[in-house]
Each structure stands twice: as C-alpha cells, then as structure tokens.
C-alpha cells in the first residue's frame, strides 16, 4: 500500500514536470523571436526541463565548416542552457555516412536534426515518412522563411513538391585552374576544348600533372564529362528512359584526355584526397572539384587558383557554360522528434537558429559555399568570388548526375572509367553496361 502510493506520487511529480516543461516552452517561444534576454525570460529558462538533442551532419573531420558549425551550436546552447546538443558528425568523403544515415533512419534511431542530401538520396526516408515536411512550419514562421533566398527553398523541394530540408549553403563544381602554372608555361585558360587539349599536351610534356583526378573516386570527372557532352537536359533524364548517344561522347572525351596524358600516372590507385593533395602542392595544374575544396588547399595554391566551367565536348550538346551545383543538402526534421512534445519546440527553435541568416553567413564564410540567405560573405579568397561569379553567369546549374541515376549505376559508371580510358572497353559498352544496371535497379 505504502509503496504504491509512493509510486503514484512520483508519477504525478513526473507528470507535473512534463506539464511545466510544455508550459514554459510555449510561453518562451514568442519572446525568443526578438532574442533579447530579459529578467522574466531567464526565470522561465531556469524552470525548463533539460532537452537532449542529436544533430547529425557532415561538418566533421576535415570539413572546412567544422569549427564554424560547432560555434553555432555552442551559441544556441549558451542562449538555451537547458538544451544539450550532441554534435554527431561523419565525414562526407566516403560513402559510409550514407549507410549510417539510412540505418539510423530505418531502425528508429533518427537524429533530431539531420543534415543530408536533397533528392534521390533522401527519397527512401522521405517516402517512408521518417521526416516531416517543413512547408507549414515555414509558413507559420514568416521571419524564418523570408530569411532564405526563394530560389534556395525552391531547389530544396523533393519530387512530391514538399520542402523537407532547410538549406544552409549551396555549392558549385568546376574546373579549378592554377593560374600561375598556366602563366609560367605560356598557356591560356582552358575555356574551350582545343585550349584544354593544348594545355594538357604541353603540361604533360613538362612533367606537370595536367588534371589531377582519380579513376575510382571519379565523381567530378564523370559529372562534368557527361554534363558537357550530353547537356543539362539529357543529363537530367538519367538513363532510365533510354540512352542518349551524347553520354558516350563524355567517356570518349575522357579517353581523349587520357591519351594526351591528362591524368596523374597513378590515377588508378589514388583517392580524391590524394588528387587534391597533388593540386594543393602545385604538382597538378587543374582539378575538378567543388566549392568546399577551396579551404583545404595550401594558401599559395588557393591564391593562384581560379575556377571556370568545364569546356564543352566537341559535338556534344553542352554549351560550355553549364555547371554542376545547387543546394544539394539541408536540415531535415525527424518525424519522431516532431511527435515528441518534449522536444518538438526546442528542435524547431534549433532548426530556425541553424538556418538563420547569421548562421548561414558563418557557415558560408567557412566553407565558401553559396549562402542560402541574402547575406554578404566577406573575407573569401578570390577563387571563391570567381566561383560565385561563375555560378551567377552560368547558362544552367544542374545537380550532379549521381543524383539522376541509382547508386549502383553510378558505381558502374565509376568503375568503367579506367577500362574506357585505357582502351579495354569502348565508351558505348560502358554506357550500355550502366544502362543494364539502371534497369536492374528499377525493376
């Protein structure tokens, strides 16, 4: 008897704490908009129940924005002392983090906020209803919504028309060129295919790596070769409805470059970071990379670099001014958290804070990405400004081809780079091979 009453009392105590937590949360939400600390607010803060949140992102390891992101989280915790944030990160360099994210989402171990790709990569957990659409929350919080550039939000839409991810910074990819090496060798910037060929031939003779790319992690090489050969429309269609013969021209172009000696001698066994290393150390004159790579290079290389679109492959459908880029990632809010009354409001607050113009500015300054808010990013290297200009002037901006075909098809395209350039397979065989994988995947 005595024991059960004790239990009852403790349960009631627990309940009252929950109620108190809800109450104080609701009352503090409006006052937060202004972010001014007043005496009354601190007293309500003190009553709040501790909330533990897990934020999963790729801002870890060698990511240029790692410290900036941690700084933003710390700032939020400072303002909301009852919140504890676990900054769960994994490097985006390998494919391991996709597995982690999908396992987490599939096994009921969802992070409260997830920073992940938008598009095909997210289709699995979006369709399974593991994350909530942000449309309503955005409409309810006009301040937050108006902080974004409208086009950034548009690009964050999934196929079903809903916005599930709040964008932070965008990216562009392009042909980064070490201007100093080009000047020293009396070469023009490779703005068209002939100039690229001339540059490759001359640099290769001199013993400088013309284009530092690996064969296995050849993501950027494939993305650019296919985009510039097939053009943005055909690239967007992927392979599911049939093969556009222009795709083969992209692979033929890689072979042409290989035969001129464009790639590192050990391209078959190096990885992306080693290829980046060659460029950073001035051993390579050009590299295909994304805006995020700029921060990782040596200062000298960074200051000598500029970025241009990959030139159009002759006979292809590309214009020579099409680039790969977009707002490919954003913060997802998990359904489990949204349904958890104890976490919901705090998590939305955190989401708003992380994607506020101030935070976006900080992250964009660190990683050189295009900000999703209308803020000015200062202190960037010239090459990053060149990148923004390139993206602004581009005829078209396409998301990378790996988001247009299945993962396995893209692996297939990757593994066929070496056989094609060394002449073991024809470009036609390579694309047909990929088409087979794509068909098998959609069955």
């Amino acid at each position, binding site marked *: 008897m005595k024991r059960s009453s004790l239990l009852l009392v403790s349960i009631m105590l627990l309940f009252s704490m929950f109620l108190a937590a809800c109450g104080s949360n609701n009352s503090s939400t409006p006052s937060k908009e202004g972010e001014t600390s007043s005496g009354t607010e601190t007293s309500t803060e003190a009553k709040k129940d501790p909330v533990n949140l897990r934020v999963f992102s790729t801002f870890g390891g060698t990511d240029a924005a790692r410290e900036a992101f941690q700084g933003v989280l710390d700032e939020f915790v400072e303002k909301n002392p009852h919140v504890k944030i676990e900054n769960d990160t994994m490097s985006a360099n390998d494919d391991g983090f996709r597995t982690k994210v999908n396992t987490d989402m599939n096994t009921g171990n969802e992070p409260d906020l997830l920073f992940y790709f938008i598009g095909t990569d997210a289709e699995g957990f979006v369709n399974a209803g593991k994350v909530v659409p942000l449309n309503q929350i955005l409409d309810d919080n006009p301040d937050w919504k108006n902080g974004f550039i409208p086009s950034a939000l548009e690009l964050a839409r999934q196929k079903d028309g809903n916005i599930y991810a709040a964008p932070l910074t965008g990216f562009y990819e392009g042909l980064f060129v070490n201007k100093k090496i080009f000047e020293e060798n009396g070469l023009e910037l490779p703005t068209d295919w002939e100039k690229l060929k001339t540059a490759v031939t001359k640099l290769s003779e001199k013993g400088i790596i013309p284009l530092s790319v690996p064969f296995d*992690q050849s993501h950027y090489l494939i993305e650019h070769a296919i985009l510039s050969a097939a053009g943005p429309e055909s690239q967007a269609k992927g392979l599911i409805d049939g093969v556009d013969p222009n795709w083969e021209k992209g692979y033929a172009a890689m072979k042409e470059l290989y035969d001129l000696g464009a790639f590192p001698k*050990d391209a078959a066994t190096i990885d992306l970071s*080693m290829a980046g290393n060659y460029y950073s150390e001035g051993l390579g004159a050009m590299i295909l990379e994304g805006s995020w790579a700029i921060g990782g290079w040596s200062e000298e290389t960074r200051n000598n670099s500029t970025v241009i679109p990959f030139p159009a492959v002759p006979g292809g459908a590309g214009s020579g001014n099409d680039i790969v880029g977009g707002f490919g990632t954003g913060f997802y809010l998990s359904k489990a958290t949204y349904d958890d009354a104890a976490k919901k409001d705090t998590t939305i607050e955190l989401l708003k804070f992380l994607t506020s113009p101030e935070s976006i500015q900080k992250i964009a300054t660190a990683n050189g990405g295009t900000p999703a808010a209308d803020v000015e990013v200062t202190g960037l290297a010239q090459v990053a400004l060149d990148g923004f200009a390139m993206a602004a002037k581009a005829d078209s901006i396409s998301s990378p081809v790996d988001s247009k075909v299945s993962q396995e098809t893209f692996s297939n395209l990757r593994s066929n780079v070496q056989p094609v350039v060394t002449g073991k397979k024809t470009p036609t065989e390579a694309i047909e091979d990929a088409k087979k994988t794509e068909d098998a995947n959609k*069955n």
Partner: protein
Amino acid sequence: MKGDRKYIFTFLLPAAVFMSVFLYYPFFKSVYLSFFRTTGFFDKKFIGWDNYKRLFTDELLGAATLHTLEIMLYVIVFQVGIALLLAVLVDNISKFKGFYRTVFFFPVVISGTAISLLFVLVYNYNFGLLNNLLAGFGIEKILWLDESNALRAVAIPTVWHYVGFYFVLFLTAMSKIPSDYYEAAKLEGITGVKKTFLLTIPLIMSDIKVVITLAITGTLKVFEFIWVITKGQNGTEVLGTYMYKKAMVDQNFGYGSAIAIYMVVFGVILALVANRLLKRDEITY
C-alpha cells in the same frame, strides 16, 4: 553431477544469446536478404534465386575470387612459412627470446588500417618513400601499384601484418615438445637442420594444420589493406571489398548478402579441402 546441469546451462546462456544476436541472427538475415532485390534501405522485392544466378555470371566476382586465391597462396607460403622459420630460429637461441618474441609479435597489435595508410605513403608514385629512394639513386620512378604489381604490392603488408601471430602459435607449440625427445636425438647424433625437419616440424604438425586453416579463413576476410591502398583498383579487388562495394556503396544489400553467403560456402569448402590434404595421425606426447 546431475544438479550441476542447471548451472551449466545458466552460465552458457549469456554466451549463446550473445552469439545468436550478433552472429546467427545477422547470418540468417543475410540468407533471407539474398533472395531480395533491394534498393537502399526502404525498398525490397522478392526475386527468388536471381541474385545467385547473377553470382555465376558476374565477371568481377570471378576476378575477385581469383585475386583472393592468389593472396591466399602468398599468405600460406610466406606468412606461414616466414612465421615457421622465425619460430625455429627463435626456439634455437637461448638469450633474448622474449625480446624477439615481442618484436615479431608487435605488428599484430597495430591496426591494419594504420599499416595500410603507412604503405599508401610508401608506394605513392609522386612522393612515396620507395620512389624517393630511387630518385636518390638517380633511377626513374616506378609505378608500384600498376596492374601487374598491385596485388603483390598489397600482399606484402597483408602478409607482414600477421606473421607475428602465427609465429607465436608456432613458438608455443615448440615449447610444449618435451626436452627428452631432443636429448634422445642428441645421443643419436641428430642436430641442426636435420633436427628441425625430422623432429620439430613433425611434432607440431597439428598446429601447422590449425595455422593453415586460420590463414585460409583469415584471407577471406582481407579488407582494409585493399580498401585503403588501392580501393580494389588495378586488379586487386578481393571478395571482402567487392561485397562491401555491392552492399554498402551501391546499397544493393540483396546481392551483397548473396556474395556474403558465397564467401561462407567458399571458405568452408576451402577449409575442408585443406584439412583433407593435411590429414595425418595426431601425435600425442
């Protein structure tokens, strides 16, 4: 004795549960998944034996199997061979035995990934250790990881990493041989190399058999050296890396599971064959 049975089961239970959860459940789940066509984590479709049919027409899998067998050959010949040689040598010295034992065992303690990263820098074409040495002698740089060399180049750290483990097993086996055997041999005038081949090796034959079985099954698990040093490029793809690529990179868990089942069957067959070939009467002292 009969009353003990209850306790025996009680104490065996945790281990049995542990094994079931972390070994048998995943294994049977793999068998189950191998009959599905999976796309990512949220979508799967029953396709019967299609994944198994694909195994037999997959050229890359055939190549991966051959590469695994080639590494297995190197492992049996060099890893077991060098371990045996070192064990015989160390067994025959009287001083510094402990020192050598530690020195030879040490690589086993280092993680394979760390050793692999080390070898990435040894083999690198542009600023690797080997090519820097060659440059010092004025010799032209060599592409160590090209198509004709890559598998052997990766086999070197693979072999080297585990020599120490088998070395310790051999040394322990040798220390168990009673000394009166050697005394009798000494009276008969058998010493040196003859003693090793006629006495030591036949007496530890059962341990050699165990080591060879371990080496065979261990080779099927080779992963990190290949993954870090060559990523399976230039003819170095082995079963472990191929399975990982199919399951984790391509997110085709169905086919990845089928490859895993294939690896298990392949390993069991190899181990049985090896046992049959090495069949001998057990020696007891």
